[in-house]
């Protein structure tokens, strides 16, 4: 006989979970009691939003399922942003929430919230467990669903009595999910068509997205690229799936992508999109997106194909498997000389750039973090200009290196995600590239980092503004800076000290290198407060509503 709480923990152990993030409360007392003498490490965050983002960061950094626990009512609703965040970026996440006892369900009991209802549109699947006998099956199903196919968050709502009740029921040997059968292998005929189209194209481009990282298809992508010499653009979520220094990597496409990447997509005659979902931040005005191209779309989620753009050759399947099959169908191809030169010309004419002077510019800070960590650090970001500069100037070498809130754009994500990534990858250097606005959204997690000795480095690109919003106000609202000035920011150095750790203020360019080194040498979390140029803007930029070909190159134009 086992109690519901014991079943939960046993299931976690069974599937190899060693770390969970959470916050206790009345409705999860039995579960926390079982955790008390369980070998699974529980990291107590200081807010449930911290727990869910940490579980998400853990999952993205390690590829394993991230697990978070919260109590009923306010605990559960505090998870909502994090669940939506994981849903948008296809992150395998298991959220376990306590719930009022089954006899109280539906009575507006103390701390009752219909969390399965609230999260219905932002979970891959969810369960409200009414009988402890169902729990072993549900735990395994939830894990399976979260981590296979297109991954995503699964929520299990666990009434208090179900945690306490006991059962003989054991874990099923086999899962019975007749409505859930992800398709991993692409259709051979479609793959053949794609191979033919690639062989014929004169101006081909590959657009690689986060699905390549999730599928672990970086090797296949590299082989394909080198076999047929196709330039690659990546989405924000795809950064790192091809090394940033590869000669055929044109960088990020989309709103703040490189000019070369945006022009290449606008001019190409064939676009092979793999593990990308044509988000509006990527496509710009959809009617001008890749207007001359035949489009091949590889994705494991059939519903993504044809959702936003017309697709000529759809291939439903796992990126790794489909790319391998595609490689097997292709002969090596020569460089397309004209296309190669055209692309190179764009790259040389319009590189990423910012003003080189003695001012402390945020782009420089990111470049220095990259240089001083040999490009190896795991980078999480907040949202805003900081996120875009991190994406542009930190050259990722591998997938799962840049951990950022792509689909939802959640301020306050980066720091707890860094904590989760550090918990999952204790031997790596983890940097959160932050804004002075975003960092204050989950700053309470400093206590968690200190408490669990997770030596995350926070680099605040402190511009005194909600910078990205200010940039839009500058460009499109006549410089009317309505509520974007961050008056009353705290002294971040003292704040770090108040939490019992280190803070370093950096006011000039010369101080950057020594400060980063000092942070790296310090065995604990550090806040680096970089007082950067306040009104620096992110360029290139495709204005809202414009096509990618209308990318603005910046002030120096």
């Amino acid at each position, binding site marked *: 006989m086992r109690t519901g709480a014991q079943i939960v923990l046993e299931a976690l152990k069974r599937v190899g979970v060693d770390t969970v993030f959470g916050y206790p409360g009345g409705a999860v007392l039995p579960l926390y009691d079982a955790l008390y003498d369980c070998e699974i490490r529980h990291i107590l965050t200081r807010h449930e939003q911290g727990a869910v983002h940490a579980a998400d960061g853990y999952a993205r950094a390690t590829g394993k399922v991230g697990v978070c626990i919260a109590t009923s009512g306010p605990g559960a609703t505090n998870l909502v942003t994090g669940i939506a965040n994981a849903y948008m970026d296809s992150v395998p996440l298991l959220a376990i929430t306590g719930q009022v006892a089954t006899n109280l369900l539906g009575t507006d009991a103390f701390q009752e919230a219909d969390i*399965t*209802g609230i999260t*219905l*549109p932002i979970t*891959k*699947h969810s369960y*409200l467990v009414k009988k402890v006998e169902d729990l072993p099956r549900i735990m395994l199903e939830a894990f399976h*669903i979260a981590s296979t196919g297109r991954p995503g968050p699964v929520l299990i709502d666990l009434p208090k009595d179900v945690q306490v009740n006991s059962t003989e029921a054991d874990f099923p040997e086999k899962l019975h*999910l*007749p*409505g*859930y059968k992800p398709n991993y292998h692409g259709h051979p005929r479609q793959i053949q068509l794609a191979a033919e189209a690639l062989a014929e194209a004169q101006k081909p481009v590959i657009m690689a997205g986060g699905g390549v990282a999730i599928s672990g298809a970086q090797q296949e992508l590299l082989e394909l690229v080198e076999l047929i010499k196709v330039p690659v653009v990546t989405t924000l979520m795809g950064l790192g799936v091809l090394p940033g220094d590869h000669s055929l990597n044109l960088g990020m496409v989309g709103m703040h992508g490189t000019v070369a990447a945006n022009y290449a997509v606008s001019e190409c005659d064939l676009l092979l999109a793999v593990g990308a979902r044509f988000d509006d931040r990527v496509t710009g005005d959809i009617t001008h997106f890749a207007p001359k191209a035949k489009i091949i779309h590889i994705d494991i*989620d*059939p*519903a993504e*194909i*044809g*959702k936003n753009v017309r697709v000529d050759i759809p291939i439903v399947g796992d990126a790794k498997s489909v790319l391998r099959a595609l490689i097997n169908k292709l002969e090596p191809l020569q460089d397309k000389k004209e296309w190669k030169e055209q692309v190179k010309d764009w790259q040389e004419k319009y590189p990423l750039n910012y003003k080189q002077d003695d001012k402390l510019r945020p782009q420089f800070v990111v470049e220095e973090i990259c240089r001083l960590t040999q490009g190896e650090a795991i980078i999480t970001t907040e949202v805003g200009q900081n996120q875009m500069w991190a994406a542009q100037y930190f050259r990722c070498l591998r997938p799962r290196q840049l951990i950022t809130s792509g689909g939802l754009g959640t301020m306050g994500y980066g720091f707890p995600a860094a904590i989760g990534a550090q918990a999952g990858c204790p031997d790596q250097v983890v940097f959160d590239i932050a804004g002075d606005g975003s960092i204050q959204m989950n700053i309470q997690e400093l206590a968690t980092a200190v408490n669990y000795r997770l030596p995350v480095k926070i680099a605040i690109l402190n511009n005194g503004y909600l910078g990205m919003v200010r940039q839009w106000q500058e460009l499109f609202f006549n410089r009317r800076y309505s509520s974007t000035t961050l008056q009353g920011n705290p002294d971040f150095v003292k704040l770090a000290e108040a939490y019992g750790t280190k803070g370093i203020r950096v006011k000039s360019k010369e101080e950057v290198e020594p400060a980063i080194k000092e942070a790296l040498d310090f065995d604990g979390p550090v806040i680096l407060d970089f007082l950067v140029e306040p009104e620096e803007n992110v360029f290139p930029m495709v204005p809202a509503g414009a096509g990618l070909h209308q990318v603005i190159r910046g002030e120096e134009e």
Partner: protein
Amino acid sequence: MKHILAVLVENQPGVLTRISALFSRRGYNIISIAAGETEKAGITRITLVVDEDSETLEQVIKQLHKLVNVIKISDITNDPLIERELCLIKVYAPPSVKSEIIQIVDIFRAKIVDAGTETLVIEVTGDQDKLEGILQLLTPYGIKELVRTGQIALVRGNKTVQYVEEE
């Protein structure tokens, strides 16, 4: 265009909520939805009638497929179908028009299932044409209440929409 989808789902709590939430969230136009148990225990069949062009319909089907409890979706619009819907109509029927109404009921092979001093309740079953037909003729008398089950449909002949368990 109107499409008829036969959707087999696992009879799990919340499955109808998931489907209707999906339609409202993505803005798909739904004409009717009718659900009930099937020949197989634990499996519910939902007949969805949607009004969408073929591109959106493809999205509807794909999005429905993403729901874990949805097992099978068949677009049976172009199959030879037996289509039925049941409809209860409470019509204003003072003595002066009662016999006229009874004639209409006879023509459509409908049934009078209740009579008040000033009303008749008519039960009619049939395909959409038949229901529209009788409703059109009854409207001038004053329809006081109308309740419909939503359309259900079955493919004629040997073809079936069934859940066959795989090994």
